[in-house]
Structure formats: C-alpha cells, structure tokens
C-alpha cells in the first residue's frame, strides 16, 4: 500500500466513528477496527521490501521553497514502530469497545484515537523533519483530547492540560533544534540529514541543536525532570493509558532519539546527557512506582522507569546498546500494554484500583491473574519471558558503560533500578492477586468477557513466545537495529539467547530478582520510611511554575491590555510617535521634489467643514446623538474628498459604510443613555488630549513630508496598473487587486467579517436568554414616543425605491471589474435597500418575507468564494488563480466573463449577510422591549379598511 494512503487512512477514517455513532457501539468500534486493520494490512504488504533491507519512499513536493516536502520513508525502524502502533492499536480498539461504558460517547473516543494513530504513523514514516514536527504536534493535540476524554473528571482535564503543556513546550524546543539541524545540513529531509554525521557533529551549533531536540524527546518520553506529566495523564480511560503510555506516544521521543541516533549519538555530550537522564529516570521511576497504591500510577511510574532504561541504552552510543533498546521497546510494549489492560479489567471488576483494597483476586479472576502475572513476571525480568532477555542485555551493556569516570556507577544504578522494578512487579502480583480473599471489595470481582481479556492475552502470548524462543524475533530485531544504526554502526554479532553462561549480567539479574523479593518482604517498614521522607511533589512545583508564569504574563500584559480601547489607542499612538520622532531626529530630510498645488475656494470650504465638524465633535461629544450627526458630516466630507481626489470607488464605499454605521449606532443608542457621563479626571483628559494632538501633528507632518516627495522605492501600484488588465482581465485596478492580486486576503477578510457577524448574533442571543431578558421586557421608553410607527409615505417610498436600488446594486456589481464598483459596494447598497424596508415597514413584515436566513447567506458567500478559488486546482493552477474570457450572446455586445466575478459574488453575499445579520441582531434586542410587533406594513392602510375588525384594531393600535 502506498505510504500516503497508509498515513492518510487513520485521518480519513477518523470521520467514520463520529458518523457511525448512532449506529450503535459495536458498529462504531467495528468501523474503527476495520480502518486500523486496513492500515495494518497495508503496512504488512511492505514487509517483503523491508525484509530485503530496502527503504520505501514516497515524495510529494509541498512547499519546496521552505524545504517542507511531504516525504515519507518506510525503513526497518519506521516499520517496527508502525507495526507497534497499528498492531497494539487494533487490540486497544477491541478492548475499548468493551471497556467504555454506555455513558461514554464512543464515536468521539474512536475519532480521537484514530487521529492519534494517524499522527503517530505520520511521525514514524516522515522523511522530512518539518513534516515530522507537524505530526509530532498533532500527537500532542490528539493525546490531549484522549487524556481529557472524561471531561467531567477534574483530574482528567488537569492531566490533559499538563501533558499538553509539557509536551508542547518540548515540541517548541524541538522545532528550534530541527531548524538548526536543517540549517547545518542544508536540507530538511531525514534521508539527507542522516548521511551527514561528521558535518553535524563538527558544527558549533551541534550542542544547541542536540539539547533542543533532546528537550522534545525527553518531554514526550517523560524523562527526568519532565517525567511528572505521565502519571497525571493516567486519569484517562485505561485503553488510552495502555495505548498512549505504554506503546506509542511516550515511545515517540524514544523513536526520535533512535531516528537521530546515527547523526547525533556517539559524542560525549550525547552520552552524558542521554545516559544520565535515562539512568536517573529509570531509578527514580522504579523507586516511586513501588510505593504507589493506585494500580495505574504504579504502572505509570514503571513506564517512566522503563522509558529511562531504553533512553539510557540509546545514550550509550554503542551498537549493542541500540540493539538492546530496540528489543526492549518491543518487549516493554507487549508486557506493559497487557498490564495496563489487566489493570483496567481489575478496575472494571472490583471498582477500585487501590492496591491496598485489593488482594486475593487470583481465585476470583483466574484468567486476569494468569495474564497479569505473566506480564508482571516479564517486567520483573524472570527467565523464559521476554523482559528477562532485554533486561539482561541492558545489564550487560551497563557493565561496559563508564559514566563520569566511575566504572561501577552505571551497573550499580542499573541493578538498583532493576531491583525496584522486580519489587514492584512482585508487589503487583502479590498484593493484588495473591493473599487471602477479602470480603470488602467495592464490587464482586469476576473475570470479564473475552472482549476484555483476549487483547492482553494475545500480548502475553507474545511475551511468552519471545521469552521462550527469542530466535524467532532475532532477525527482525537485527533488521530494525541495522536501520537504526544506518552507516554509523555495525549490527552486533551476538545472539539473543536465554542462557549466556555464568556472565556478570546473570549475577546482576539474580541480585535484582532476589533483592526485589527481599524488598517486598519488608514492604511495610519500607513504606513507612518512604512516607516519612519529605520529597518534592511534582504537581505542586508544576502548578507553582504555571502560576508564576501566569503572574508574570499578567504583570506584563495587564498594563498594556486592560480592555479599555483608550489605553490601546494611547499606547499605539505614543509608540508610533516615539518611533517616528526618533527617525526624524536621527534621519536626514531630502529637499522636496514636488511643488505645492494651489487650493481652490471649494476645497477650502470642504476643509473648513471637516475642521468644524471635528471641533464640534470634540466639544459636543457628550451628546451622543449629536456626535453621531457630526460623524455623519465627517463621513460625508471625506466621501466628497475622495471624489475630489478622483477615487470614486472609495467615495462610494465610504458613503454606503457611513449609512450602515449610522443605522447600527442608532440601533445600539436606543439602549444607551443619551449623554456620555464624565468618567475621567481633568488631568487624565489633558494627558489624553496631549497624546491626541501629538499624534495628529505627527500624522500631518508625515503626510506633508511624503506629499512633497517622490516615494523612496517604486510603489507597487505601478505593477498593479501594468498587470491589472493583462493578468486579471479588468481595468478597475482597485477591484482587480481585491479579487485577484490579493484575492487570498479578501477571502480571509470575508471569513472574518462573517465570523464577526455570527459572533454579534451569538452574543445578542445569549444576552436575550440571560437576566437582560427580564430587564428588556420591563423596559419603558425613556422619552415619549410619537404615534406613527410605520408612516404610509415611508412605506410607499421605500417600496418603490427597492427595485431601483437593487438594480443599481446589480449594475455596480456587474460593472465592478472594469469600472468603479464591485461586490463589496454592491453588497452594502443591497443591504441598505433591505434595511430601508425594515425601517419603513417594520421588523415583522420584512422578516416574514425573507426566504433565506442571513447565516446561510454568509455561508453561501464564503463557500462561493472558496469554491471559485478551489476551482483553479482542477486546471492545475494554485488556489484563486483567475481566468477570463469573452463571450457574446446576441443581441448583446461582446462582454467579459471572469472567474473573479464569481469570487466577487462570494464577497457580495458575505457582505450582505454579515451587515444584515449584525443589524438584525441588534434590532432583536428591541423586539423584546417594544410592546407590539405589527405584521402590517402600514398603520393606516386603505385597502384594509374593508376588513372591519382588523382595521379597527390596527388603527387603535397605531394610537397606542
């Protein structure tokens, strides 16, 4: 199967569980299983190629200029991890089907699970490190959703947040490291990078890159000191813990270390950082795990410990260490996933995971007992089980590792960790399953159905098979090791076997196992000792750090961002002014290259009016209605100014926007006091006036300066003028810029516009549901109302005007590509035409005649514009490439048809929808407050007079 399909399959499949949700839980799980199975089989079809030692590649250039290509590579290492991800994924899906209760939304769960699976497969198959980062972040996000799946549990939400914060932070560091790596090599393709070991290690930026990448790996794989998030992520449903925290997500960091092993390993820095972090994690995790009473917490810390073990093995930088790491990844995934699933079964059956409340389950749950015991014994490192083999390889490797110049340090610590590892494994068996039967279980424990025990049983079968007959997997392990090592090492000759003779590793192993047994026998005093030892609580530290960061952010942001617009305006004005002032005093001024133009009497009159309106605004702004009228004047004069300076497009837009603004403001003003109260002190107002004057003077100076001089560089407008007709097929440059040159911007803008309108709608709707509703219902107008609600003259006039205005709007729209106009102005014109009807004939009458809701109009607009853009893909052009042609339909003259016109239609629809939706939402507020919602367009209608009763009431109502 093509690698693209392999990666895309879980993502596409993620749509299915949600859709199948209503078809029942088995169907949902079934479809998820099928998707995973397909991917699994698809992966296996590549097995023959992999076994021949070849690498499967698939490549599509995505953003070649940035070095970001969609390049996938399947080699032994990737195959190995993909096999774990998909194989264990299958078991988890089967297990989760029976694990999740009826209250859990299964469709959602499996959607998240498949998203996660896709992201994981993406990581292990990526050949481009930038692509790898994208998938890496996707695993962080999807695991966030999975860990927080039980949204009602606060621990689940907190655990999910913590996991996301820690892994995403590491991810950020890793991005930086990857970018450095890419810069060193000059390529972001892994297959390229892996060839340049010497180049990378000789580079002065090697150490920063190494540290940053390792930060990403360590956070993801829960290495000390970032190990604390993993136990808190245990609030997730057990299938998630079994999948993410045994086999997949936490192995992503390990995978990346393995992937980068050929180029990053072998240096002293790598050795010291990775080995010591791994060793610390291994010992620390094992010690904490022993004293955890929650079954899943015990397993979580044991996972931390085993991840540390693998990390340490990778850190040694030897080929044998790498092989042991690969082997242990396989073994750990099998026994740990089985253990997690068993813990889930116990939790399910006994309704508790607290080891202190369990015990004696062996006779009540024999099947689970068998599975969990075999898996735990493997974890403890008992011969004939797979954990023994890799643990002994680890001990053998540790004997050869010299850290900080002390030869005994690594083997001693490794044995110490193994000892605790054996102890907690034995504790798991002894304190949960063995011992006397109790009669105070929260629920009666019993063995579950096959759906729950079969998946871990399959894994345990593997545990035993590998443990008894390691030669079965040896070729595969060596193959994976070979692809891990690349050109940097040679696969060791040594065979994986149960009996090596009386080697030191065997003795260390014996010490660990028997030491573990002895430690467990003195568990009670040890626990008392442990409980009385003070130790830092990771969550408290984490919370303190988060709180400190939040406090710092508050301290920085709140003075700048306090929610008051005046503050932002002041900061913006002062900053720009300061920067401009600095530029002015340090820079040089050229002599003017243009001469002043004479000003006629009429422009001066217009200027005076602008000044007058502005001055009036400053003096009279507390009267809100008056200031609105003055704003109208300013808008009008600015529009005239645009006409005067030959910008009819702008004039039309300005004018229509002005009308809509006044209507919007008046709708809001209805619910506001007529006067703005004095809220700030005199001193403050003087200060603000100072800032305003400084800003105004600076703006004047800047404009004056630039109007007298030619631009420093050639303005882009020349390109637009030259290419508008050639490239965009329109002679109206403004419109061609909007719909063609910068069409993508426009597309984004109409989406924002639509979102803004929908937000206004949502806000008013929420407002109307809350306490405001009662206040509105009891609202009395604060001034006497004139009697005429819908004057007949208005109704008739607006009704006559409607088709005319629509016609003009249509004309302006069609003409837009070549002459002033376009979708935006047409949208505003049409909106005003509709608003006129609202104002004249009333809300009820107009709404009753609306055929399409405004939300739909916005959606249709965005969709039209988007589809127009996508349309260019079908002819192999980039998004939003426009095309035009000339057609002639007799008896009309030849005219032009451009795809930009369709795009403009989208703009038009989005503008109409957005403007109308926001106006309508505002006026919805008044719906509650006003007493009568009249369906009749006129208070007095001669044609209604015949109908006696109706006529009477409406006349009577008009008098109210």
């Amino acid at each position, binding site marked *: 199967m093509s690698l693209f399909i392999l990666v895309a399959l879980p993502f596409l499949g993620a749509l299915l569980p949600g859709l199948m949700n209503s078809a029942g839980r088995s169907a949902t799980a079934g479809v998820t299983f099928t998707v995973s199975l397909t991917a699994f089989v698809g992966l296996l079809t590549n097995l023959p190629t992999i076994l021949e030692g070849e690498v499967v590649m698939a490549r599509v250039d995505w953003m070649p200029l940035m070095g970001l290509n969609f390049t996938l590579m399947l080699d032994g290492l990737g195959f190995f991890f993909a096999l774990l991800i998909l194989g264990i994924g299958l078991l988890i899906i089967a297990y989760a089907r029976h694990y999740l209760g009826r209250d859990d939304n299964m469709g959602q769960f499996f959607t998240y699970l498949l998203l996660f699976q896709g992201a994981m497969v993406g990581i292990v198959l990526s050949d481009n490190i930038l692509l790898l980062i994208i998938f890496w972040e996707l695993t962080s996000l999807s695991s966030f959703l999975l860990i927080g799946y039980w949204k009602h549990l606060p621990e689940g939400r907190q655990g999910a947040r913590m996991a996301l914060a820690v892994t995403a932070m590491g991810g950020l560091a890793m991005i930086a490291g990857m970018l450095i790596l890419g810069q060193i090599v000059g390529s972001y393709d892994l297959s390229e990078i892996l060839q340049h070991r010497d180049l990378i290690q000789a580079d002065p930026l090697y150490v920063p890159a190494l540290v940053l990448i390792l930060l990403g790996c360590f956070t993801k794989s829960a290495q000390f000191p970032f190990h604390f998030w993993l136990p808190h992520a245990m609030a997730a449903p057990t299938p998630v813990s079994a999948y993410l925290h045994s086999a997949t997500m936490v192995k992503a960091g390990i995978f990346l270390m393995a992937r980068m092993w050929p180029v990053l390993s072998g240096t002293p820095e790598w050795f010291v950082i990775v080995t010591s972090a791994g060793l610390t994690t291994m010992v620390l995790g094992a010690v904490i795990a022993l004293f955890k009473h929650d079954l899943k917490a015990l397993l979580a810390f044991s996972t931390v410990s085993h991840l540390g073990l693998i990390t340490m093995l990778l850190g040694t930088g030897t080929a044998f260490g790498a092989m042991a790491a690969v082997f242990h990844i396989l073994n750990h995934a099998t026994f740990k996933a089985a253990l997690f699933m068993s813990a889930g079964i116990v939790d399910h059956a006994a309704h508790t995971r607290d080891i202190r409340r369990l015990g004696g389950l062996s006779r009540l749950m024999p099947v689970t007992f068998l599975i969990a015991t075999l898996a735990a014994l493997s974890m403890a490192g008992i011969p004939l089980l797979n954990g023994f083999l890799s643990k002994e390889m680890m001990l053998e490797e540790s004997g050869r590792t010299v850290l900080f110049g002390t030869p005994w340090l690594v083997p001693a610590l490794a044995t110490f960790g193994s000892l605790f590892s054996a102890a907690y494994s034995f504790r798991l068996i002894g304190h949960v399953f063995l011992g006397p039967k109790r009669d105070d279980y929260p629920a009666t424990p019993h063995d579950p159905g096959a759906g729950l025990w079969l998946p871990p049983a399959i894994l345990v079968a593997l545990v035993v098979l590998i443990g008894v007959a390691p030669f079965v997997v040896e070729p595969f392990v060596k193959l994976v090791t070979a692809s891990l090592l690349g050109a940097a090492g040679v696969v060791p000759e040594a065979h994986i076997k149960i009996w090596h003779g009386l080697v030191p590793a065997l003795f260390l192993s014996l010490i660990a196992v028997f030491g573990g047994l002895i430690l467990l026998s003195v568990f009670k005093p040890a626990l008392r000792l442990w409980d009385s030892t003070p130790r830092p609580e990771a969550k408290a530290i984490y919370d303190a750090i988060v709180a400190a960061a939040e406090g710092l952010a508050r301290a920085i942001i709140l003075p700048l961002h306090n929610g008051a617009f005046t503050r932002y305006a002041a900061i913006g004005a002062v900053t720009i002014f300061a920067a401009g002032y600095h530029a002015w005093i340090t820079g040089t001024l050229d002599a003017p290259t243009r001469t002043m133009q004479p000003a006629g009497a009429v422009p001066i009159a217009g200027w005076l009016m602008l000044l007058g309106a502005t001055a009036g605004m400053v003096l009279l702004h507390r009267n809100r*209605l008056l200031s609105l009228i003055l704003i109208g004047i300013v808008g009008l004069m600015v529009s005239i100014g645009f*006409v005067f300076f030959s910008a009819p497009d702008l004039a039309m837009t300005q004018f229509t926007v002005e009308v809509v603004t006044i209507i919007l403001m008046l709708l809001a003003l209805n619910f506001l006091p007529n006067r703005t109260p004095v809220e700030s002190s005199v001193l403050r107002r003087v200060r603000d006036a100072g800032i305003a004057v400084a800003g105004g003077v600076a703006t004047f100076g800047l404009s004056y300066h630039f109007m007298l001089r030619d631009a420093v560089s050639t303005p882009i407008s020349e390109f637009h003028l030259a290419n508008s007709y050639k490239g965009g097929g329109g002679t109206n440059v403004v419109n061609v810029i909007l719909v063609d040159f910068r069409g993508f911007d426009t597309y984004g803008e109409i989406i924002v516009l639509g979102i803004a309108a929908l937000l206004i709608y949502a806000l008013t709707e929420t407002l109307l549901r809350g306490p405001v509703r009662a206040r509105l219902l009891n609202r009395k107008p604060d001034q006497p109302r004139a009697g005429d609600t819908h004057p007949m003259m208005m109704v008739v006039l607006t009704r006559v005007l409607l088709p*005319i205005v629509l016609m*003009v709007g249509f004309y302006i729209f069609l003409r837009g590509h070549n002459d002033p106009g376009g979708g935006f102005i047409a949208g505003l*014109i049409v909106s005003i035409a509709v608003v006129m009807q609202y*104002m004249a004939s009333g809300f009820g009458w107009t709404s009753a005649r609306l055929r399409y809701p405004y939300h739909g109009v916005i959606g249709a607009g965005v969709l039209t514009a988007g589809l127009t853009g996508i349309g260019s893909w079908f002819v192999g052009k980039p998004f939003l490439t426009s095309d035009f042609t000339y057609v002639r339909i007799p008896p009309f003259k030849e005219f032009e048809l451009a795809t930009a016109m369709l795009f403009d239609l989208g703009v038009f629809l989005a503008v109409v929808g957005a403007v109308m939706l926001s106006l309508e939402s505002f006026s919805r507020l008044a719906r509650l407050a006003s007493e009568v919602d009249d369906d009749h367009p006129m208070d007095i209608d001669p044609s209604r007079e015949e109908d006696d009763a109706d006529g009477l009431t409406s006349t009577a109502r008009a008098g109210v």
Partner: protein
Amino acid sequence: MTAATELMDIALKIAFATLALGQLLSMVRLLIGPSPGDRILALDTMVVNALGLVILLGVYQGVQIYFEVSLLIAMLGFVSTVALARFLLRGDIIE
C-alpha cells in the same frame, strides 16, 4: 475661449460658490442647533448640497463616473436622515 465656455465657466464658479456657502451655513446651523430636529435637517441639507457639489465637479472635470457617486448619494442619502428622524420620534428605528 468662446463665449459659451466662458459663460459655462462663470456659471460653474457661481454654482460652486453658492453650494459651498450653503454647506458652510448648514454647518453653522448644525453646530448651533438648537433642537436635534434642526441638526438632522442641516445634515440632510448638507447631503443634498454635497450631491450638488459632486455633480458640479463632474461637469467641471468632464468625468462621467462622478454621476454614479451622486446617484448613490441621491438614492441612499436620505436613509440616514430617516434613521435619525425615526430615532428621535420612536427611539427604535426598526420596529
């Protein structure tokens, strides 16, 4: 310069001057009020005068496109006046 264009020139100048003066006087009315009705009427007058100015500008510069701007102003200019008047009379402009 022929007599006709000369005449046209003078006429345009007078028209510009009167309209500009009208604008300024409306502006004065708008600022001194006294009632909101006066001010709204002043705004309406200014819209009408602005319409005249745009048309005159079109005639003066010989550009047709300005007439469309004036068409828009003529067609939609009254909407804000109506909205303001409705606000004064009823408070709610859409009921």
